[in-house]
């Protein structure tokens, strides 16, 4: 079993909901980013700005695991790479070595609170108790492994049952994120990768990322970027599906 994620670049509506969901789920301090939505300008007419969601790639051959001198960064049998903050010495070698730059060193100065200069809110205080972040150590996305573990303990299936699925996947209103088992050739993500020629970021590094992208290549060539119309159409289709579901559930017109 190896958990992975597929990101549909056409369906992604750049809403930042995945970023917000992660921040809420893990009570991330302001200076901390686990998933990101990065943007750049292109020279394709009508596509001056494009965005791509990125997060820790949970590499199969993770350089961060290999270089950690304290063995604080570990890889589980299900492929999830995580940091044991009780062991991490804060040398930041993993931050430097990650070619995707998806790790953040958490220092006190990155934690001024959501309202710097004011007392922490009750939400922040509660968050500190529920999900304590250890200053002086490194953090990263771990595919919400606590949700996966708790869900699987109840017999739920990650990627299918919301309770066992990463928060960002649950919250994606356009269903641009798909989560599942890469080792299972019948799983939804394996089929998506196979049918839509899923690609990884910088495969030449030999890190074998578990995050794949589909529907649209990333680059400057005109055919490589999903046209805005296609994104809108996908989004509208999704909204109409949701509307239809709502009608079925609530029985209203």
């Amino acid at each position: 079993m190896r958990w992975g994620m597929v990101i549909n670049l056409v369906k992604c509506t750049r809403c930042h909901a995945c970023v917000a969901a992660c921040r809420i789920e893990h009570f991330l301090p302001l200076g901390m980013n686990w998933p990101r939505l990065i943007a750049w300008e292109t020279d394709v007419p009508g596509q001056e700005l494009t965005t791509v969601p990125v997060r820790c790639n949970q590499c199969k051959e993770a350089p961060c695991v290999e270089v950690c001198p304290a063995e604080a960064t570990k890889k589980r049998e299900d492929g999830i790479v995580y940091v044991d903050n009780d062991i991490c010495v804060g040398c930041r070698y993993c931050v430097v070595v990650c070619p995707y730059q998806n790790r953040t060193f958490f220092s006190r100065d990155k934690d001024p609170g959501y309202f710097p200069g004011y007392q922490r809110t009750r939400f922040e205080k509660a968050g500190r108790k529920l999900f304590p972040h250890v200053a002086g150590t490194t953090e990263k996305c771990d595919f919400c492994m606590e949700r996966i573990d708790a869900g699987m303990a109840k017999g739920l299936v990650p990627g299918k049952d919301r309770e066992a699925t990463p928060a960002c996947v649950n919250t994606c209103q356009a269903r641009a994120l798909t989560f599942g088992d890469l080792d299972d050739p019948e799983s939804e993500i394996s089929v998506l990768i196979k049918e839509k020629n899923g690609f990884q970021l910088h495969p030449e590094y030999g890190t074998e990322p578990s995050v794949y992208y589909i529907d649209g290549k990333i680059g400057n060539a005109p055919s490589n970027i999903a046209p805005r119309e296609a994104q809108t159409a996908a989004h509208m289709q999704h909204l109409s599906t949701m509307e239809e579901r709502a009608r079925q559930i609530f029985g209203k017109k």
Partner: protein
Amino acid sequence: MSQMATRQWMTTHEWMVKPMHQREWIERRGIMIWIAETFTSLGAGLYLVSLFINSWWGLLIGWLIIMFLKLPIHIAYFGKPWRFYRTMPPFSNAWKTSWFARGILFSVFFGTFGFIQLVFGQPDFVNLIGNSIANPIYYTFGVLAGFSAMGVGIYGGFIMNYVKGIPFWNQGLLPVVIMLAGVADGFGLIMGVGLAGGDASVAWAEAGSRYLLLINILLIVTYLISAGYTSAVAKLSIQELLKGPSAFMFWVGLIFLGLVVPAVISAVSLFSGGEASSVLLIIAIAAHTLGAFALKYCILKVGIYRPLFPRVAAY
């Protein structure tokens, strides 16, 4: 017009979209890594040169630089310095895969073996226990400390060389450049030991320094040329060194102070048929040391990551 409208509500992020500098190991607290790495080169280089010419004072100073300057600064940089012990066996077996962990082990071995060698090489102690007992121990631990010092001197190069995202560092030649630059700095410092009345020959050190400086100049030029061919981002790093924000440090610090000044002074002594004057030697030692700081600064500062999406910006 549409572009203007777009920019009004959202500014393009620079993060990993364009080539991005590594900051963790050179900015803010990262300056400590720069300083610690420089002391690594100076200490290990001096120890190796002193071992070669059997200079007890050189060994002592090299050992002190590593143990009391390099290691404390390096550990102080950690986010959790008191967890330092977790990087070593039996708490961690990371030395099997991590050059960082290996470097820490080399430093510990060096500290231990070097200390024993220094004790059994100390003249008063040798007189006390006799040559027949002291000498075998001194030389045995000298070999062990020498290998450890080599490890200490070279591991920083391997640490950086392993970073695939930074093409300028990801060169096979980097550990060699760092190691030999350290030895050249060791020659510079051993001149200081000789000048201060220690047990080192200044003329010998000058001769050694002369050859090594030439080798280092060739090595740095080769490194820059070969790195430039590997990727556009590595080329960008080189451009930053030659005519960008790091040009002052490169040309004045590394090339002029670190290579040209010591080379000219050693050439003067060669053609004048003896040792250079004390003033010139002091200038050469200072220039060598400043050059060591400049080399590490330049390497760390121009570490630039390849963007996440190479095709976007043709990298």
